């Protein structure tokens, strides 16, 4: 059954192929959406298989999907589908208005498919070498998307992104080398020594010095991708300058892929070094990220940068959950990564519509968006409340679970600190977004979407995402619950 995960990762390439071969950009968009939809469908099948049976694995764990991989696979595939729908409407507007040439739209869809495929493949491997290759490939494909609108700022942001990410990811590769080395005294082939299942099973026998080094370098390296402070400096620029659906992919999917890599390493460290070591490391990076994210969210003037700093904050919250550890902490962290992905995707997609309609991302030039664009404005408001952890949305449940994990772990002061930071984030975010959505109308609004079909296409992914978030806030389906339980058992 190994071909099934391979197919999941290969399906988004259909869009790339159409973009490369055909000059009709409409076809590329349709193919991208169709490929992404089929990919999500199969991803659900793969995840279901991992609950009921053994991991889908090839030799050397080059392909390896267990519960954890299945969970992230579904998350990434869901974001890819929503973002592909968003791309179809966003790029149609950009092409019609003359902002993007046909060639650039084709480059966009070509890179989009490669980006999606690399991310999906990355969460389907447990070979640490291949993981590095795929995460770097995803980075390189996404770098093409950032400056596609042709602004100088976009090119600069892209450059900073590629340089800092490549530097970080190289550090992660050094980490993988040390992990590989820590296992070199054990029997087994070279491929096994790079394979996560082998390393996890023999975690106690790994050379502790090399393991510690490998873990730390891996967290710093992949943490650069995740946007953990202080390695987050590239993130706000890249996420703000990319076209909105690409920002959704970066924030909603790529950050999770980095987190997936860290969780794999954390599992080995937890077992080989005791959960104290890994947990403390995650808490330090987590709190630093929440702090940096929250501080920079105050008085932001560009709403996409605001969303980007909110991503830094949320990645910090996930790291804190992993740091608190235990069943509750890891469960909460994983659930939070799914919730955040959906919420951030809606924020960026709806925010993209606003940017198209007003031609600006400056909050001080925007006002009364809800009045001018009722659907988009309402969705943006809903997504903002969801991302801030207001009930009854999913993020409330996952943040609550993480807080409970902290209390169960007897760390009330850290919990108090986390809650205080979240309160500041709430005020900063809602003040800024509220002023832009409500209040007196400001700015010149031009309806970007032509006809009801295009408008529906632009709004539909956000509606679906918001409903899913609402659903996750009210109850966790038993399917998802067992997937999460599987993953938690692997990481503890």
């Amino acid at each position, binding site marked *: 059954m190994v071909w099934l995960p391979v197919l999941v990762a290969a399906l988004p390439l259909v869009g790339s192929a159409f973009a490369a071969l055909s000059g009709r950009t409409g076809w590329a968009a349709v193919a991208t959406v169709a490929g992404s939809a089929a990919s999500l469908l199969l991803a659900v099948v793969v995840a279901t298989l991992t609950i009921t049976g053994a991991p889908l694995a090839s030799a050397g764990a080059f392909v390896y999907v267990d519960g954890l991989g299945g969970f992230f696979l579904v998350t990434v595939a869901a974001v890819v589908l929503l973002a592909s729908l968003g791309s179809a409407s966003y790029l149609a507007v950009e092409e019609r208005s003359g902002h993007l040439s046909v060639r650039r739209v084709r480059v966009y869809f070509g890179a989009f498919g490669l980006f999606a495929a690399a991310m999906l493949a990355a969460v389907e491997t447990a070979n640490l070498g291949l993981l590095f290759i795929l995460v770097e490939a995803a980075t390189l494909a996404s770098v093409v998307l950032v400056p596609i609108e042709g602004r100088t700022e976009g090119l600069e942001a892209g450059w900073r992104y590629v340089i800092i990410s490549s530097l970080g990811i190289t550090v992660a590769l050094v980490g993988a*080398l040390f992990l590989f080395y820590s296992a070199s005294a054990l029997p087994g082939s070279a491929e096994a020594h790079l394979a996560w299942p082998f390393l996890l099973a023999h975690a106690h026998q790994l050379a502790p010095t090399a393991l510690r080094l490998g873990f730390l370098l891996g967290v710093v390296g992949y943490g650069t991708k995740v946007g953990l402070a202080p390695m987050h400096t590239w993130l706000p620029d890249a996420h703000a300058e990319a076209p909105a659906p690409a920002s959704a992919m970066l924030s909603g999917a790529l950050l999770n892929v980095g987190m997936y890599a860290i969780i794999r390493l954390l599992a080995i460290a937890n077992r080989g070094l005791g959960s104290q070591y890994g947990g403390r490391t995650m808490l330090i990076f987590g709190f630093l990220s929440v702090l940096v994210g929250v501080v920079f969210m105050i008085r932001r003037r560009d709403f996409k940068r605001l969303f980007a700093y909110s991503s830094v904050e949320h990645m910090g919250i996930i790291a804190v959950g992993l740091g608190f550890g235990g069943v509750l902490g890891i469960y909460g962290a994983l659930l939070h990564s799914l919730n955040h992905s959906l919420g951030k995707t809606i924020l960026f997609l709806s925010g993209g519509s606003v940017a198209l309609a007003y031609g600006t991302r400056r909050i001080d030039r925007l006002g009364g968006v809800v009045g001018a664009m009722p659907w988009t404005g309402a969705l943006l408001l809903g997504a903002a409340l969801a991302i801030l952890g207001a009930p009854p949305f999913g993020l409330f449940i996952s943040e609550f679970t993480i807080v409970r994990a902290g209390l169960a772990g007897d760390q009330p002061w850290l919990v108090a600190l986390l809650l205080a930071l979240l309160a500041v984030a709430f005020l900063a975010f809602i003040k800024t977004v509220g002023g832009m959505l409500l209040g007196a109308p400001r700015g010149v609004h031009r309806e970007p979407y032509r006809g009801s079909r295009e408008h529906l296409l632009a709004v539909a992914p956000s509606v679906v995402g918001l409903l899913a978030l609402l659903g996750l806030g009210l109850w966790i389906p038993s399917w998802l619950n067992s997937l999460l339980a599987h993953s938690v058992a692997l990481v503890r």
Partner: protein
Amino acid sequence: MQELTLAPPGGAVLSLDAVLILLSALACLGSKLFDRYLSYYALQSVLLAVAAATAAYLEGDPALWVLAGLTLVLKGWAIPTAARHWLVQRLDLKRDSGITTGLSLTLVLGTALCAFAYLAVSPERLAHGLLAASVVPISTAVVLLGALAMVVRRHMVAQLIGWLIMENGVFLGAITLTASFPLIVEVGIFFDLLAGFLIMLAMTTGLAERISPLSIGRSGRDS
């Protein structure tokens, strides 16, 4: 203290080669001319190919021979030639004026990083049947020196070369630490490096037409 090298003749060649690789990284760090950066990088890559060939000979591993050949052709020749043609000549780059710290301070920092690498990854703590344990801290030092070049230099081309040096350091570590790294992984890393180089090349030329490549390193506009 444990003997640092395992197989005296082969291990010694490898160790000596690694020292030369470290020196070429330091030389690059101490230079101010773009043309020199590339020369030192090319030299370092050729030395890296020698290291891979030595390891291949010692281990009798055909995969490592492939790697040595790839390193020689791509890193020793293709990448420096392309960079010289497309970047240094076309953008008419001569002297790098975008170094934030003075050369002597840079070298002091670099030396400190080398010392740090030795403290962090001291060979006697690692070695168990390693090809040449002394190479491990050296490769760590090369990685750190590459990272230092990326941090203290603001010019895009200099940052790109810093990354390439870092990558060389990783490769040196991969050869010695893990002589039997799976080939598919090594080739994949090579492919990533090549794709990354091409993308960075395109971005550098794209940006250089619009703004001074120097202004890139300034911290982001936080509005």
